[in-house]
Each structure stands twice: as structure tokens, then as C-alpha cells.
């Protein structure tokens, strides 16, 4: 295909001061319109890699070498202000916990207005119309009547829907979904995952899933990259990873995935 929309190129991240490497030469390229999953346990470096893409590494931790390119242009070379502008417009994040990510003291409309004004310079009526459209798109019932609701007035699943709408508000090229359902009940989880999958198709978006649970992304990702201890263990199409895993660690992860069916995936075929 064409140039990858996101290209992580031999990226190393760590404590520069102590010469301690947490992510070691990880490469990953995400094709436009694809859904890629970055899978790993805590400490695997998946979250740090994601934060590096968003330019949000915690203090003391920095990119040691390598590059992150969006549409062929390096993100690391950008001055901080321009880098921040990319977040929310070109790159958007669906976080783990919508309750923590939404501002509890602002109603929904105000939060959307803030984003729409910053990135798209939309104001007043235009912002309101766009907000209603977005809320409708993510399946919030009668969105017009919910504009003045506060985050706590939504159920957990609806809150995550609002969060997704907010992530979509500026038409991002790349949507990063960081374990977006861990805080939700299982029956709601599926609705949210289905929603993101449906929106990806309808809006022709690129999605990067970040998760510790291989099972969850089986039906969601075309490509899967497995990380462990800051290194890329294996990557390939979902079929390759699930049906013909090569690395023992990938097999181990597959075996650990609990299932309701007796044919243990990954061991057969």
C-alpha cells in the first residue's frame, strides 16, 4: 500500500539520565484504513510507545533513538506546540477510563465546544450542530436533550460513547484506543468495541488498539504486534498471529486467553 499513516521506526524510549532502556528498537507501521493491535502485558512498553506517539511521555522518560512519523513527517522534530496541535486533530485517543478523562465540572456541550473551537475554529451554532451529529453517530439516544448533561449523568457505556464522539470530533486520521473497555461491564464492552469497529468502517479511519488481551482484538484488528519487555516479539496479520504463532511467547499469550470453547486457539492448525 501507500505510505503508512503511522510509522514507528526503531523507537527506543527510556530514562535518558540513567541510561535505562524501557522500549528497545520497536518498529511498527500502520497502513491507512487498517486496524492494528499493539498487544503486551504491563511493562511491555505498549503504553510508553503510545505516549511517545502522542508526545506525552512522563517527565524523566524520553525518546532515546528512532523516529515516529505521521504521514511520512517526523513527529519528534515538531516543536512542542505544533506537536500538541496534532493531538485531538490528527491523532485522537480513546482512554481507558472515560470518567477520568472527561471534565466532571463541564457539561457535554461545553467540552465539545472547547475541542471544536481549538482545532476547527468552530463556534456557537456550528459547534452545537456538530456535537449533536457526533453524539448521534455514537448512538447516544436523543442527543439534543443530553447536551447539558454532565459526565456523571451518563452510564459507564454511554460515557465511553461520549468519549469516542469527542475523539472523533475533529476527524482524526489515527484513532488510538487504549484498552477502552477495561472499566466497563462485559456486556457493554462488546457494544463499545462494535461501535469503534463500525465507525472505522463508516469513516474510513485508522485504528490502533492497545491491549493486554489478545482475545479481545481477534475480531477487531487486521494486524497484530506483540510486545514483551520493551521489545517487539512478533508481528503479522491477525490470521498469522492467531493461527500460526511463531514465537513461544505469542503461543503462551494465546494459551492464557480464556475461552468458552474447547478447541484452544493457537494450538491447533
Amino acid at each position, binding site marked *: 500500500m501507500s505510505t503508512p499513516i503511522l510509522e514507528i521506526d526503531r523507537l527506543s524510549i527510556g530514562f535518558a539520565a540513567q541510561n535505562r532502556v524501557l522500549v528497545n528498537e520497536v518498529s511498527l507501521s500502520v497502513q491507512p484504513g487498517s486496524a492494528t493491535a499493539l498487544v503486551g*502485558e*504491563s*511493562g511491555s512498553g505498549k503504553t510508553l510507545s503510545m505516549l511517545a506517539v502522542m508526545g506525552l511521555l512522563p517527565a524523566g522518560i524520553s525518546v532515546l533513538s528512532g523516529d515516529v512519523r505521521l504521514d511520512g513527517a517526523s513527529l519528534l522534530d515538531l516543536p512542542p506546540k505544533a506537536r500538541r496541535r496534532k493531538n485531538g486533530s490528527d491523532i485522537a485517543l480513546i482512554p481507558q477510563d472515560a470518567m477520568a478523562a472527561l471534565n466532571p465540572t463541564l457539561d457535554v456541550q461545553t467540552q465539545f465546544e472547547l475541542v471544536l473551537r481549538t482545532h476547527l475554529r468552530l463556534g456557537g451554532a456550528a459547534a452545537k450542530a456538530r456535537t449533536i451529529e457526533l453524539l*448521534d453517530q455514537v*448512538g*447516544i*439516544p*436523543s442527543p439534543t436533550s443530553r447536551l447539558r448533561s454532565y459526565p*456523571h*449523568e*451518563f*452510564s*459507564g*457505556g*454511554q460515557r465511553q*460513547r461520549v468519549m469516542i464522539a469527542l475523539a472523533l470530533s475533529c476527524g482524526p486520521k489515527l484513532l488510538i484506543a487504549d484498552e477502552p473497555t477495561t472499566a466497563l*461491564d*462485559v*456486556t*457493554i*464492552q*462488546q*457494544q463499545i*468495541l*462494535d461501535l469503534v*469497529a*463500525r465507525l472505522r468502517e463508516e469513516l474510513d479511519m485508522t485504528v490502533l488498539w492497545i491491549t*493486554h*488481551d*489478545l*482475545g*479481545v482484538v*481477534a*475480531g*477487531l484488528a487486521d494486524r497484530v504486534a506483540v510486545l514483551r519487555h520493551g521489545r517487539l516479539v512478533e508481528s503479522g496479520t*491477525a*490470521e498469522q498471529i*492467531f*493461527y500460526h504463532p511463531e514465537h513461544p511467547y505469542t503461543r*503462551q*499469550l*494465546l*494459551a*492464557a*486467553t*480464556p*475461552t*468458552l*470453547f474447547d478447541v484452544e*486457539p*493457537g494450538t491447533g492448525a
Partner: protein
Amino acid sequence: MTTPDTLVEVEHLCYAYPSRRSLIGPKPAAALAVDDVSFSIGRGEIVALVGESGSGKSTIGRLLLAMLRPDSGQVRFEGQDVHALGHRASRAHRHNYQMVFQDPYSSLNPRLRVGDAVAEALAITSDLPAADRREVAESLLRRVRLDEEIYDRLPSELSGGQRQRVGIARALAARPKLIVADEALASLDVSIQAQVAQVLRDLNEQEGLSMLFITHDLAMARRLASRIVVLNRGRIVEAGATGDVIRAPKDPYTRALIEAVPIADPLRARAKQRERVERLRGQFAAEPHPTTDERTTS
């Protein structure tokens, strides 16, 4: 109905969280968190209590451990009503049933070395002389497959999975007959879940330890439990042998839970998802509000 093989009997248990008094008007009727729940746990058996948030599953666990007092109904442990015991007798009785908590980051005292946490449990629940406690505590750590070198570490130096196993070792120190594991795997990575689940299974198979495994995860319940009790909004909607419940669920809620378990097979998972999305699109066209099935908890 009490047989020597029954360890715990829960009968017609009801519990409502105390509601807030309203300033004006009558006191609002409290919704029952646990509504007429009855089940039993046999000796050497693992029973899974499956439900989502608000199902009352954790409340039942706490009622069982006498951390809460029911509004009505009984919990009998080897025939003894655990809520009928006096303060002192209850304290002496507690070591029989131990809890493994959900959050490995708050279930251990941050200032206590993990070995000392296990040794303390021995000090409380046994007559073991102080000099022997370290040795026994180390053997307990080995039983949950932790290296005894871990003894002198602080909880902050351990991973989530290691902490969770320390929590299990601490519970084992009391030589309990029943372990109540309340979402004990939920906050762990999938691969670590499998390891900790294996520790629980070994304890059950090799030592006949009974367990109440409280979870939202049917797949994990299937891995561990011989019987499953499905809860929805405080009520039991279905109960039976694990295989029967999963293969032939009778209740629509159980079916929804089964549907929600991810399939670790790309082709089948994609096909299923396409089916669901199409169905949703159909609904979307028919009526514009596809999320009415979702509870509003506010």
C-alpha cells in the same frame, strides 16, 4: 438438607444497602442489592458467582464472610450460622473463610514486608511459636509459586500478579476451609491471570480447598468452577453445572454474558461481529436509538 459434603449453605439471603435519608417526604424504599439468594458450596468444590457490576456478587461475598450482616436469610458454615456468633466467637471463627481481594495494590499493607504479612496472619490464627513463623510463611509463599526470596520485599517492589499471590498465601496462613476470591484476577494481565488461576486450581485439586470464585468473566469461571451461579441485579437468574450453563443457557441474561466473551479466532470473531453490526444497523434504520438496552446507572 445439610449433608457432610456441604460446606456452606446460603439461604434466602436478602440485603439492602442503607439508603440515605431524604430531608422531605418518606424514606425511599431501598433497592435490594441481594434479593432472596440461595445456593450452597460443597467441600472441595469451586463455585463461580458470575455477574456484572450491580449484580450483588461482591455483596454476597461480604455477607458470606460476615463482613456484612444480612437483612434476612442465613449463611451456614458447617451448619453454624455465621451471623449468630458473638463478637469474640466470630473473630475466632473467621479464619475458616478467607478473602482474596480484587485490587492487588490495596490488599497489602504498603509498610509491611510481604513475608511479614504472611507471618502476621500465622501469628493471628495459629499457636505457632514466633521462631517458626518465618519458615512456615516461606513454605506458604512457595505453595503459591513465589520464590521465598520475596519474603523481605515490600509490596511496592512486586508486580500485580506477585502481590495477588502474596494475598493468597496470607489467606492460606489461616488454614481456611473456604476461599472467597472477589474478582481476584480482574485487574491482572491476561497471561498473569492464567498463572494465578492455576495456583487457585492447584490448591483446589491438591488440597481440596473450597472456593467461591466471584467474577464477571464467564470464560475464567468455566476454567475454574464446577458450578456456576449467574446473578443479575441481586437475583439468581440461572445456576447449574458449568458445562450445562455454558452449553445450554436458559436465561437471556446468561446468553448475553456468553455472547460477550471474546473469541480468540479472527475469522469467527469477525463473522460474529459483522453479524452484530449488521443487526445494529437494521435497528438503527428502524428506530434511531440503538442503545436502549444499555442500563443508565446515574
